[in-house]
């Protein structure tokens, strides 16, 4: 083995643990926290739109329009680098969580809304005929069926989010990709290090995809149609 090969292997072995740690300490929590908060936002926005709750519908539409129409990286920069100039200073992790939450909320709300609309009109009619209000119909009858429809698309957003969290490197969060950049700056082996980082993302996503298919099976079994 040439000296260069030996050196590369050494660098890859030495950097594996720091990269994995950064992934577990930042990438994973960032993904999970942002996704859970984002889901809450998504459901709230979707419900506001479906029930047509008057003063909030236009606010909800405006929010979805802004978030979907501007780049996530730009949003992160505005939150982290921009807001301090109006007196709102947030640390890097908080900025990233807010940015990703807003993003998941906007895209997720459209998924949830479409899932709600996919439930047949007859379900609304039957519930109305039984005297249930629209709100009760939504919670007891429509949402449980809509969730099942939304799960595959929402799990896709979750997997996308794992990868999108690499953008947090740009606002100084010490996540997986940021650490890869730092080691690269020291060792000048960008090809191998970024490949290694990619491999760790791949491992995370593979595990999640496996979990996703398990969950879909669970939902189709426990929410028998």
């Amino acid at each position: 083995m040439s000296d260069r090969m030996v050196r590369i292997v050494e660098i890859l072995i030495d950097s594996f643990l720091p990269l994995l740690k950064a992934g577990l300490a930042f990438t994973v929590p960032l993904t999970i926290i942002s996704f859970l908060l984002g889901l809450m936002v998504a459901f709230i926005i979707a419900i506001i739109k479906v029930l047509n709750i008057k003063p909030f519908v236009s606010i909800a539409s405006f929010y979805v329009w802004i978030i979907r129409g501007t780049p996530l990286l730009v949003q992160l920069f505005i939150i982290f680098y921009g807001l301090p100039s109006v007196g709102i200073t947030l640390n890097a992790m908080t900025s990233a969580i807010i940015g990703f939450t807003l993003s998941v909320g906007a895209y997720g709300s459209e998924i949830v809304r479409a899932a709600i609309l996919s439930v047949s009109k007859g379900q609304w009619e039957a519930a109305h005929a039984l005297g249930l209000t629209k709100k009760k119909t939504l919670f007891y009858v429509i949402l449980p069926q809509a969730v099942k429809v939304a799960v595959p698309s929402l799990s896709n957003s979750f997997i996308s989010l794992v990868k999108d969290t690499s953008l947090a490197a740009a606002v100084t969060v010490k996540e997986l990709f940021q650490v890869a950049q730092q080691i690269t700056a020291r060792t000048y082996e960008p090809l191998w290090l970024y490949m290694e980082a990619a491999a760790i993302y791949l491992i995370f996503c593979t595990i999640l995809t496996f979990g996703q298919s398990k969950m879909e099976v669970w939902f189709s079994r426990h929410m028998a149609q």
Partner: protein
Amino acid sequence: MMIKIEKVYKKFGTLEVLKNINMEVAQGEVVCIIGPSGSGKSTLLRSLNHLERISSGRIIIDSELLDERKDDIDVHKISSKKVLEICAELGMVFQRFNLFPHMTVIENVMLSPIRVKKVDKKEAEEQALELLRKVGLLDKKDVYPSKLSGGQQQRVAIARALAMKPKIMLFDEPTSALDPELVSEVLEVIKSLANEGMTMLVVTHEMGFAKEVADRVVFMDNGEIIEENIPDVIFKNPIHDRTKAFLSKIL
């Protein structure tokens, strides 16, 4: 009068689907509405619980004003709370059953007593079991609707509607989506309700059933009530030519 329908018109855009409908249903009366598809039978039935809004006219359910409109504008604004209160007195059974697929049979039957009437769970369950016994599906109580035949699903739907202890039952072509061999089990259940004195309005294509059960048969065509009478007269000596033409095609 349990149901009073006065000068009701309904337009979908320029299409007039109900034209000057006047009709009354007394307590304990069973009225069957027959007529060709598109004659407005279902629309009329669905107007009785606001699933369709009438364009003009007045609907009174058990002396409570449900709807009064003129040219698609409310003459009296009825609050949605009031509408739901009145709806709870009307049980409705749909052509396509519309059971809640994510709930078991008994959960379907228990949902509205618990969530609308705030009946406690134990009492709702006892009542649901009694209703399922009545429609002959006690053994299916923990099954999901998808595991049931159409006829069984429709019987569950009837039990679910009865769980609200309605004063009136509305049936919107309850057997039209069923395989022929499953029709009679559903009709038997509806007949037994009629025998118990339930006030019922039934839109149906089952002429044999209408003959046997109805106190009165209403024939509708093209958005109008053409004639109404006791079944004997309607089926044996209809007055109107359109009724004769329809019956000759169907019988």
